[in-house]
């Protein structure tokens, strides 16, 4: 009996050593052909000066990068991108966690909330932008209508929301949070649900209050998913362009211009592919730095 299992195990081991590679092979094929190769080619183009529609391009080294980094648009867009992404991550995390913890409790109305929570996330960014854009419209928006009816403003368009330089990015961020928090909420709800009650009971018996229960029981379980969702979600928000494009197109006067909208303009208004590729690479480097820093900060405590 033992002999057989040992032999069987050895045979299994040899077979087993290529099994993981087989399992990940399809995903590698997809990722390489659809993502990696195009990204490499695109980045390669960033060292040239191609314009869509014209044959021929010349190697210009880092000129695209230099031009962009020294342009006034760069700092402006970068600042806004950071505000936008940072605000969305922060607001989104808080909202997701709160919503997940809320849905984890038992009370009337919880099931209804669980039933509708994903609705904002389900609606496409374009539609979200159109609907909220309308709500916030200065001349005929829902919000201004309510304020006007309540007599809080004299003219219906006294307060401009998306045309107001000071408010525009804030409002866009809030809408992004509205749209994105449900996904985090359900991922964390699933994680919360998988924490056994006994752990909490044990902690309570040990005298831990609510905050400490969260810190020592809930948080460690949440952390992997938290890190993941925030890195990926953060990058997605940083790179996302649909929502702001539909709401303001980066306006007014570039007060809501983020790197992603500027990239779109360079790529599809100017058709300067090389310059656009350079901007993408810069955006990638920024998100990479952010991801590394974030990972470091959240895993440092474990060390």
């Amino acid at each position, binding site marked *: 009996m033992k002999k057989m299992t040992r032999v069987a195990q050895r045979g299994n081991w040899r077979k087993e050593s290529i099994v993981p590679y087989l399992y990940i092979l399809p995903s590698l094929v997809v990722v390489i052909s659809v993502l990696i190769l195009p990204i490499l080619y695109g980045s390669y183009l960033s060292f040239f*000066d191609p*314009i*869509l*529609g*014209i044959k*021929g*391009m*010349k190697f*210009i080294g880092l*000129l695209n990068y230099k031009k962009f980094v020294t342009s006034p648009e760069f700092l402006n867009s970068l600042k806004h991108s950071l505000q936008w992404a940072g605000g969305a991550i922060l607001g989104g995390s808080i909202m997701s966690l709160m919503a997940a913890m809320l849905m984890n409790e038992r009370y009337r109305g919880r099931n209804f909330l669980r039933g509708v929570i994903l609705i904002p996330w389900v609606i496409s960014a374009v539609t979200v932008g159109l609907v909220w854009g309308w709500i916030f*419209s*200065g*001349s*005929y928006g829902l919000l201004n209508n309510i304020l*006007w009816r309540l007599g809080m403003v*004299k*003219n*219906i*368009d006294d307060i*401009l929301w*998306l*045309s107001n*330089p000071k408010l525009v990015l804030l409002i866009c961020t809030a809408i992004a949070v509205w749209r994105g928090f449900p996904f985090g909420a359900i991922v964390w709800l699933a994680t919360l649900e998988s924490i056994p009650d006994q752990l909490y009971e044990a902690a309570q018996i040990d005298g831990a209050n609510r905050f400490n229960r969260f810190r020592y029981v809930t948080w460690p379980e949440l952390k992997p998913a938290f890190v993941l969702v925030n890195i990926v979600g953060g990058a997605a928000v940083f790179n996302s362009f649909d929502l702001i494009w539909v709401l*303001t*197109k*980066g*306006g*007014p*006067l*570039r007060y809501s211009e983020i790197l992603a909208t500027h990239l779109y*303009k360079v790529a*599809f*208004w*100017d*058709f300067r592919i090389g310059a656009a590729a350079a901007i993408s690479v810069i955006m990638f480097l920024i998100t990479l730095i952010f991801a590394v820093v974030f990972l470091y900060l959240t895993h440092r405590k474990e060390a």
Partner: protein
Amino acid sequence: MRSIKAKKELIVAFILMLSLVLALGGSAIAQNKIVYWHNEGGNVVLFPQMKEQIADFEAKNPDIKVEMVHIGWEIFRTKLRLAVDAGAGPDMAEVGYDTPVVYVGLGKAFCVDDYFVKTGLKWTDFAGQLVDSATIGGKHWAMPWRGDTRAMWLRTDLVQQAGLSLPEDDTWTWEDFKAFAKKLSNPVKGIYGYGFPAALNDQDTFCWFQPILKAYGGDFYDAAYTKSLLNNEGAVKAFEFYASLVNEGIAPKDVVNWQRSDMENMFYAGRLAIMQDHFGAGTAMRTKNAALGTKITAIKVPRGPVKKATFGAGVLHLGFDKGKAQNDITWKLMEYMSCNFDVQKQYYNEKDPATGLLTVHREPALRKAAVMEGDWPYPGDNIWYEKVFMTESKYGEAPPKIVPREGFGVNEPIAMALQKMLIENWSAKQAADFAAAGYNKQLAEAIWYPGKK
């Protein structure tokens, strides 16, 4: 026995050969193809008409098959550019007035002069603004298809409410217009006299600004395309005038976020007394809503101290150079849709018996198909939007490529200049200088060759 079998085999072989010949021969009634990109798939009035016309064309030309592909204006420029770059572009496309020059500059379009000569028509038979946009370097590169002009649309109910009568639109100036619009404004009730798009968009913002600009003597470029005239005296006055519309409460501050649809929306709702728009806009609104039809009317665009200028535009058919054989075939469809008097007249030409105004969306490009003679609804002078790009190379030998901006890019400096006045309170002079700088930059960048700094 053998001979019967042999005969059978012969017969079978013969049948096979015959079917082979027929099959080959059938395809040798060569199916010539025209791939035609258009944007009217959502146009419930025009699209069925187009399909009918093309079916008719195919019936008259059994050896040609037309493949109609709806793209949609919003993505059209990008898709066309991508496709042409990759070699996947169409044979013929419905394009706006500012597109031919781009593809001529890229060397992708074919010249239609030789073909046109054979039609017996003259270029003056067509609406001037369209011929203008098809003319590059003295040659013609596209066929005008449908024309368009602008009107000032008025809410007669709001005019009546204010106790006013319709203005003398044959002689009124922009200043008269401003005074008139002011009397119609009632911001507390949410009603404004006039509104216009001033957001970033494909072209509407600067199209709306253009008549006022020209009326005061401003322009985009000088005749030789050496520099921008957007900051000459007249242009500064035009910027000032535009800003004063908002600052004096005639137009809402929110225009910086307005697209054309927002303006039309407000007009429709009775919150905007006057709007400038395509001639077809009002007729379309009227067609869809008979009650509204009794409350709106069209009057002519005002004139300025320098000249009376309206904005005219339209769409053309651009043929892409795919070699003479294919170009010959593509031309047939272009000719059919543009040079055929009956085709143009048949579909685009109806008058509302009550008002005498045209009830269709767009006017035909072929003037003699138009019902109304004279300069209304066509602009009296064909001054409108000249090509805001370089049209000729300044270089002697093998010219570098010309890369004119189109659409959004052209609109941007004007939209931003207007917004700077309205949001950051820049003076008209500052805004004008800013816009001029933007256009000068485009001029400098328009000539491109690989490696140019």
